[in-house]
């Protein structure tokens, strides 16, 4: 018989109680993982943002456009290496429940500024050369069974009317945290329609994306851009892409904060559940610990028995919880409206946090029983009747 066998036999002495504890820990780990995944999804835009990209938007609100004429002025600022621009299109594809980001862009610069959206050179040139061409992310392509050459018909809302696009490329994201659901089409295509339908909305840009040569100069360059358009009818607000994304997320900051707190409270719940089990277990075994001590087992042995038992239970619970987390997150994502979270993945840090929390909880849960066992006099333990 080995120490490990003894620890395992002891761990499952009260099968029902231990199973309930393991289930409790598993459920808590699943809840923790789910909440962390939601927070990760919420912050995905911030996480994926580049430090050397700036976003220039209307100072009053993102919903107000900027003149197209700003492009050349921004490009002339020292430190700016490239300028691109986009307009949020909105619109309806198939029906109103089908959501993914659709934006009009400058086909010449967009994929230079966003190298994380990977396309072949033939796809890029095909996209550039056709006025109503579009590029879609691989997730969107998979979702609607789109392939190169397919037509996408859309009904505009921000830009009313019927719109037709031809898929000329499908981009793949560089990493799992990059959004693989977006759609891009020519800004010129949109602008031409505006010139025809509503001239007051022509030559307007939703926001500029500016690439700079040195991320450490972002504050200085942002200030220079904003100073350039000060006291104009369309003042700008320039910030890093991360800050821009954070602006969207921070409107839900309180909710995310609450979710974050809840996820850590769950760790506390695991701790209480396991502590309760371990304290009950060790109390019942007071006499046995006394017997073991009388036989010559030392404090080190008792530490191995008690901590080993707590760790067996906590790690088993965490293991089961983590194993179930993957299908549960996938199931949860399928219940959400399509495209609700462009990136909905369990980050490896979530696994590490769940696993290490279980490890720490196992050790903490062993402290009180261990202290009692170590400080108990053998003669008192042998007299213990429960």
């Amino acid at each position, binding site marked *: *018989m080995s*120490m490990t066998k*003894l620890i395992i*036999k*002891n761990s499952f*002495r009260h099968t029902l109680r231990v199973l309930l504890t393991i289930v409790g820990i598993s459920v808590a780990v699943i809840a923790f993982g789910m909440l962390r995944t939601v927070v990760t999804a919420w912050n995905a835009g911030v996480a994926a943002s580049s430090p050397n990209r700036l976003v220039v938007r209307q100072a009053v609100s993102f919903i107000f456009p900027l003149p197209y004429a700003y492009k050349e002025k921004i490009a002339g600022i020292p430190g700016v290496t490239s300028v691109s621009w986009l307009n949020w299109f909105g619109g309806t594809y198939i029906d109103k429940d089908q959501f993914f980001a659709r934006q009009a862009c400058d086909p010449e610069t967009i994929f230079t500024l966003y190298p994380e959206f990977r396309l072949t050179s033939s796809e890029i040139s095909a996209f550039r050369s056709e006025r109503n061409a579009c590029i879609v992310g691989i997730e969107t392509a998979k979702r609607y069974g789109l392939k190169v050459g397919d037509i996408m018909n859309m009904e505009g809302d921000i830009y009313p009317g019927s719109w037709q696009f031809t898929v000329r490329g499908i981009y793949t994201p560089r990493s799992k945290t990059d959004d693989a659901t977006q759609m891009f089409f020519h800004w010129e295509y949109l602008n031409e329609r505006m010139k025809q339908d509503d001239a007051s909305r022509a030559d307007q840009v939703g926001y500029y994306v500016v690439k700079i040569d040195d991320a450490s100069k972002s504050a200085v360059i942002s200030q220079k851009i904003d100073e350039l358009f000060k006291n104009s009818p369309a003042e700008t607000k320039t910030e890093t892409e991360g800050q821009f994304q954070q602006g969207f997320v921070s409107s839900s900051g309180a909710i995310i904060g609450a979710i974050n707190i809840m996820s850590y409270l769950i760790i506390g719940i695991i701790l209480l559940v396991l502590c309760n089990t371990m304290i009950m277990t060790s109390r019942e075994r007071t*006499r*046995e610990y006394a*017997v*073991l*001590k*009388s*036989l*010559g*087992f*030392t*404090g080190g042995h008792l530490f191995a028995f008690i901590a080993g038992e707590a760790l067996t239970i906590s790690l088993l619970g965490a293991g089961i919880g983590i194993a179930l987390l993957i299908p549960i997150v996938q199931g949860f994502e399928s219940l959400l409206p399509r495209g609700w979270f462009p990136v909905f993945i369990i980050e490896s840090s979530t696994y590490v946090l769940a696993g290490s929390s279980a490890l720490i909880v196992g050790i903490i849960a062993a402290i009180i029983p261990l202290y009692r066992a170590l400080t108990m*006099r*053998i*003669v008192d333990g*042998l007299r213990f009747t429960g």
Partner: protein
Amino acid sequence: MSAIITISHLTKTYKRDKQEITVLKDVSLDIAQGDFVALMGPSGSGKTTLLNIIAGIDRPTNGEVMIDGTNIGVLSETELAKWRSRHIGFIFQFYNLIPVLTAFENVELPLMLTPLSKSERRRQVELALSVVGLADRMDHYPKQLSGGQEQRVAIARAIASDPDIFVADEPTGDLDRVSAEEILTLLERLNKEFGKTIVMVTHDPQAAHRANIVHHLEKGDLIPQVPS
């Protein structure tokens, strides 16, 4: 025969709230190697306390306890634990077997503290269980055994690591007469055939009759008596 246990001017006091209770008063006692000693006396006389101090699971307040040349009073807790594992075999009134372990595993428990290999441990456990007549019950769990059998497993656990001294606290106190006789016969065999020193606390005069020396304790004082 030379003394394996020498107790000199042993005093033990407990503090309960603010009151100090003296359980053993200046007890001096020699127990020779191979003796079978019974400690008798009414409840509260200090016999179990004396046994616990001899076994190294309690410490004297004053006085000295020398066992086979070692003053156990000066050993640290870890040293004392190691010393117990080598020199003392425990037999408790309520057997104190681990319920989730089989008879074999219970007997093997003290051998986990030795450097013996797995096969040597197996041999030792089988030998111990055959000495107590339970070789055919080694895969049984304590709840599958009778009280007498459980106590025999406990004795096998005590003899497995081949200690010099056995301490038995009311080893027959929880058994019927037939089982009690079997256990006492077993202890007698350990003493006579294997030359083990046994110190046994008992209330039972018939059990004490198996010992070759009986010491009586009264309110912490030792009154030696030598039977036939």
